[in-house]
């Protein structure tokens, strides 16, 4: 087991593995998305309270979960990278960040579009939406920091520390925002208030969540390959890659 772990910790080996994996992950993500959307739009019935508008949960809840799961994954890779000083861990952490930020943004966007017809306002300062907003800021901070530092290894490590500090603070932030919210708002407005979700709705939502998860993994694997190419570009194994040789042929006179 250790052997496999250390084998793929080398960028050269992971490059190949990621290259073989991502198409399958993407295909599975697409299949699940089609299935989930089918269930969500053509099988799940109309909600008694929210009419057809509730169908937004099939995208809102998955991206919200993903924004948190991706941040946890980043913290995991950050921890690995800082403890073992592996280059690949830092790359995986950075490869996940853009997708996570997009998920956080989509969570806020779809939340607003759900909130407007349901509660009449584009934004409510409820605990979960406010925490999601702060999570979005944490993502932006990470991306800004890693982009601002030119030295790649320093950027990786500094980003790693930031990701870990952020991850440890997220529960504190959530708890404090929840406290802040219950003290200032009488009746709490919950995103899943009222109707208990029908079985089929829950099923569709979970399928969509897994689909988004696989999408995030596929994108991260694809992205990290480009990062490996750039960082290892002076290595012989990169020069020997078929795609590099093909590109050289294409551009040479």
């Amino acid at each position: 087991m250790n052997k496999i772990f250390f084998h793929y910790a080398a960028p050269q080996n992971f490059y190949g593995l990621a290259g073989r994996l991502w198409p399958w992950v993407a295909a599975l993500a697409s299949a699940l998305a089609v299935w989930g959307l089918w269930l969500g739009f053509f099988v799940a019935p109309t909600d008694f309270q929210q009419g057809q508008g509730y169908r937004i949960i099939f995208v809102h809840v998955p991206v919200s979960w993903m924004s948190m799961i991706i941040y946890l994954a980043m913290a995991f890779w950050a921890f690995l990278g800082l403890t073992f000083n592996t280059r690949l861990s830092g790359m995986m952490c950075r490869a996940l960040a853009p997708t996570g930020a997009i998920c956080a943004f989509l969570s806020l966007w779809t939340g607003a579009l759900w909130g407007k017809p349901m509660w009449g306002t584009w934004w409510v300062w409820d605990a979960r939406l406010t925490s999601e907003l702060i999570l979005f800021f944490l993502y932006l901070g990470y991306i800004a920091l890693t982009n601002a530092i030119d030295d790649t290894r320093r950027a990786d490590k500094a980003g790693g520390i930031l990701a870990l500090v952020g991850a440890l603070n997220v529960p504190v932030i959530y708890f404090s925002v929840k406290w802040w919210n219950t003290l200032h708002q009488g009746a709490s407005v919950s995103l899943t208030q009222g109707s208990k979700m029908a079985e089929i709705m829950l099923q569709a939502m979970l399928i969509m969540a897994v689909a988004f998860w696989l999408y995030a993994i596929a994108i991260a694997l694809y992205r990290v390959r480009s990062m490996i190419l750039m960082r290892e570009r002076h290595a012989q194994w990169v020069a020997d890659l078929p795609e590099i040789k093909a590109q050289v042929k294409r551009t040479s006179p």
Partner: protein
Amino acid sequence: MSAFWAVVQRDLVLAMRRKTEVITAVFFFVVVAALFPLGIGPEINTLRLVAPGILWVGALLASMLSLGRLFAADFADGTLEQMALSPNSLSVLVAAKILAHWLLSGLPLVLLAPVLGLQFDLTEEALWTLTIGLLLGTPILSLIGAVGAALTLGVRGGDVLLSLLILPLYVPALIFGAGAVQAQMSGLGAAAHLSILAAMALVAAVFSPWVSAASLRIALES
């Protein structure tokens, strides 16, 4: 331990030679506290309601302004490297620098806040809650800010980047600090809020010097 106090003394002496920097940050707090009423309107009942939030946010921003110079000067002239190479634990030396920073940037805010609070017609008890809250909270701002300052050391656009990085992390302190005053004003009592602030300050005091030192090493070795 003597190294700790030596660094504190050194930082204080150096800052005294550049008094304007310290005073400017404090004046910023005063100006911000005056700006909000100008933007909101002179209705005293409204101002009394929003005072805790305004004063805390003002303290936050003023504290953040001064973080840039926590490590920058020592980084530029090589002192930071000497500190990292010295036999003393870098965490201890960083803790000393943070203490000096708080004495220069945080403590003045704590002392000024009740005076500014009078402009918002806060009661005596509310002013006490505000002051104690800031006394517990401004160290948290210095401690968390130090991590951000260490991570952005020498990075271009570092000051603005620093704000983006640590403002989300400041949110809990802001919520409980301002919340304490609001709880006191509404008769619920601020004990719970202040206890939580104290707990956060303790946790930050334990972890921040170590994390900041690690971040500094990352910045120094590149």
